[in-house]
């Protein structure tokens, strides 16, 4: 065994601005060539741990620390940030934000430029790194022209230009669609093998990372390391559920069927997991035993869209005739790759853009002549990032804003805001400043600010982006609750779990067309749609196949129904 490249020795850290230490007594070592996943709920300290590895702590973020951290055999506090960055290459979560160059080539070259590398070595090394991640044909492109997956590849190339010994990824899957995320995990795995560097991935989406083999999983909670074990051992234990990390769906399904999960069976991969005949029989038995959920009655059509077409100023058509209808009280997901037309569709509904042809009608009334403001009385739009919507200092004022601009009387404003705050669980915080809230709570505030206008439909862009499982569940249960009160909910999402678990129906967009409009279980078991929409087949489907269940689609549907009921029992 080689010497550890990263070594934590009884390390604790407390930010200057915080009352409590963020990391407690961390002891950890990672060797060259190892692949390690660090997971845990939001606020567990995993990002802080990453900052300690790449040197941002102690060099950029100040705080009190005890114990030692060394990278490449040298203690980080005695090594400059620049020195550390020669050993540790970091790909940050927000690939947009870390794009510092005007073009792909310049972005890759950035570290070399700062090192005063000159031509011809400069151009050669950039090209080599670009080839390693497959972006060599995009060198002169601007960041805006790239997809999320390509941006991430460029970021990776930007750290590969130096021969780093540690590749550190901070939530690499956060902004990627399912298929791109899968490809990203494969690429990370390949690059790790080629370079022999240690790969450290910080991510809470366990199942997606385990798509490729990981040597170890470090589970964090409350600033401590709770487990430092192989993925198999972790999945066999009960720590995941206790700490708000979602276990892979197939593991949950096996547990429902009463199959014991042991580390010896290698549960880290559904393809390679050892399933005995009796295990398979148990799954089949569970499938037959579980009754299908009763069909909900068909409601009347609320939103009817007919042959919607839209082209940008430059003539490029973004939507080629979309027709769909949303029923009253439905909870639907709009899915598809970046650039498939999902956001354009939402913008047309809200009136932010004007369609070239086609109609949008709500409860039978044509919307052609309605302004943005008038439409907003019926359809509320919640942006992905709550920081993009919040403009008031106090929560009460933020929620009241829409009513006040509509000229409502102050006592009516008070009554309606209070009612909404109660529904949204924000009543205890009503007089708090918005800045004191967590990201998830801010999201609630923005939803409340829309809800107070009593729209019939709420349209949400990525409602759970960047949320860990606990906050995710909180937000989604809240939306589900609103839905039960009769509000139609439509959400644009990349998250397959979200779609499977909460949406009854999915509208799949691909290249400006609607390619499917069906129950989610049906879509996530259809190879053709999965491929075209850059989705990912659910592991439940693979499990069903492996257990010899013919009707895999029904199995997935049965699982979802069962889970929903289990959640609300």
């Amino acid at each position, binding site marked *: 065994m080689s010497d550890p490249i990263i070594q934590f020795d009884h390390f604790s850290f407390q930010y200057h601005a915080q009352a409590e230490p963020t990391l407690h007594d961390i002891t950890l070592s990672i060797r060259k060539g190892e692949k390690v996943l660090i997971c845990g709920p939001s606020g567990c300290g995993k990002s802080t741990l990453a900052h300690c590895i790449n040197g941002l702590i102690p*060099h950029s973020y100040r705080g009190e620390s005890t114990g030692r951290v060394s990278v490449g055999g040298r203690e980080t506090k005695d090594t400059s940030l620049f020195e550390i960055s020669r050993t540790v290459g970091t790909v940050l979560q927000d690939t947009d*934000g870390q794009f*510092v160059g*005007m073009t792909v080539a310049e972005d890759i070259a950035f570290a070399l430029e*700062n090192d005063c590398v000159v031509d011809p070595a400069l151009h050669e090394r950039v090209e080599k790194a670009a080839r390693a991640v497959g972006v060599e044909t995009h060198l002169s492109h601007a960041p805006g022209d790239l997809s999320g997956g390509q941006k991430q590849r460029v970021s990776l190339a930007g750290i590969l230009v130096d021969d780093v010994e540690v590749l550190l990824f901070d939530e690499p899957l956060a902004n990627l669609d399912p298929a791109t995320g899968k490809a990203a995990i494969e690429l990370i795995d390949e690059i790790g093998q080629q370079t022999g560097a240690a790969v450290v991935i910080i991510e809470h989406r366990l199942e997606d990372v385990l798509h490729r083999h990981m040597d170890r999983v470090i589970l964090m909670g409350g600033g401590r390391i709770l487990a430092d074990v192989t993925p198999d051992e972790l999945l066999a234990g009960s720590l995941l559920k206790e700490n708000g990390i979602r276990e892979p769906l197939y593991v949950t399904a096996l547990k429902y069927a009463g199959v014991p999960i042991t580390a010896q069976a290698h549960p880290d991969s559904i393809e390679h997991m050892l399933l005995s005949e009796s295990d398979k029989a148990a799954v089949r038995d569970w499938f037959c035993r579980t009754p299908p959920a009763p069909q909900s009655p068909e409601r009347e059509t609320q939103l009817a869209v007919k042959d919607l077409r839209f082209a940008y100023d430059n003539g490029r058509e973004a939507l080629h005739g979309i027709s769909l209808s949303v029923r009253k009280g439905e909870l639907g997901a709009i899915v598809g790759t970046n650039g498939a037309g999902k956001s354009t569709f939402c913008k047309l509904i809200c009136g*932010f853009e004007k369609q070239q042809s086609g109609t949008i009608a709500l409860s039978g009334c044509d919307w052609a002549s309605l302004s943005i*403001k008038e439409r907003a009385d019926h359809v509320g739009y919640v942006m992905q990032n709550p920081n993009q*919507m919040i403009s008031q200092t106090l929560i009460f004022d933020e929620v009241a804003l*829409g009513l006040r*601009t509509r000229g409502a009387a102050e006592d009516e404003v008070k009554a309606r805001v209070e009612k909404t705050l109660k529904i949204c669980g924000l009543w205890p915080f009503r007089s708090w400043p918005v800045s004191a809230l967590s990201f998830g709570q801010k999201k609630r505030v923005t939803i409340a600010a829309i809800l107070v206008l009593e729209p019939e439909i709420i349209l949400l862009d990525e409602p759970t982006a960047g949320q860990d499982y606990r906050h995710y569940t909180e937000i989604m249960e809240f939306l589900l609750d609103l839905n039960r009160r009769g509000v139609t909910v439509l959400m644009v999402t990349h998250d397959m779990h979200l779609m499977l678990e909460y949406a009854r129906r999915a509208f799949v967009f691909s290249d400006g067309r609607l390619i499917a409009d069906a129950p989610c279980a049906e879509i996530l078991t259809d190879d053709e749609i999965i491929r075209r929409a850059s989705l990912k087949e659910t592991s439940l489907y693979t499990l069903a196949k492996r257990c010899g269940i013919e009707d895999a689609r029904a199995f997935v549907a049965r699982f979802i129904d069962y889970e929903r009921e289990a959640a609300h029992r």
Partner: protein
Amino acid sequence: MRPIFNYIDRPSPIHRLTGATKLCCLLLWSFAAMTSYDTRLLAFLAAAGVAVFVLSRLRISDIRFLLGFVTVFMVLNNVLVFAFSPEHGVGLYGTRHVLFSLGGRWVVTKEQLFYHLNLVLKYLAMLPVVMIFICTTQPSEFAASLNRIGVKYTVAYSVALALRYIPDIQQEYHEISQAQQARGIEMSKKESLLRRLKAASAILIPLILSSMDRIDVISNAMELRGFGKNKRRSWYMARPFRPADFAAMGLCALLLAAAIFLNIHNGTRFWNPFI
């Protein structure tokens, strides 16, 4: 929405000059145009500017927006000069040839008109070269050129980064403004100024806050990749000077020299045809 730095990729001899050359030429040319009020030189600069504009294969349609903006500014400038100082030309040139009167103290003189002609020529002498610089310099080469003429690279890079993020921030402004309009915030002219200012804050505050987040991320990303480590850095986009670059800079230096010579020779910055 148009980006401010509007690079137009239409290869020409001017495009092939390095960014540093173009920046250098722009500075020399501007100094020449600024130091002198010699009508002959200004007329020459204006004509030469138009010739270079043609050489750079730019079209009027490429620069319509900036052209309109500068024209409005130029007219305003002239009107204000005449309104507040109708005898400025007389003071400068020492003679007074009255043409006609507009009433009150506003008397139109040949000298004043000639002064205005010089003012317009100054704009015309500057406008083409500024446009050429903006439209033929890649934003990425801009930082490298600033650095090359002696600006610290950390400063040069922040300018380049600002340019890089302008389109993103414009886009974000657009999105936030739409979402806020949906909540009933009216930005149109129908509203009173006070209400519009309030509405603007509903867009600007989220924009500023999210830009702060952005700055935090980007500065971490840059530091992690060694920005600021050394006193110098190399530039991927930097190109070596070629003979054409030296020739261009030489010519512009001659122009500045001519301007200085004329100032000394005339004994004043103004060329006076009235004596």
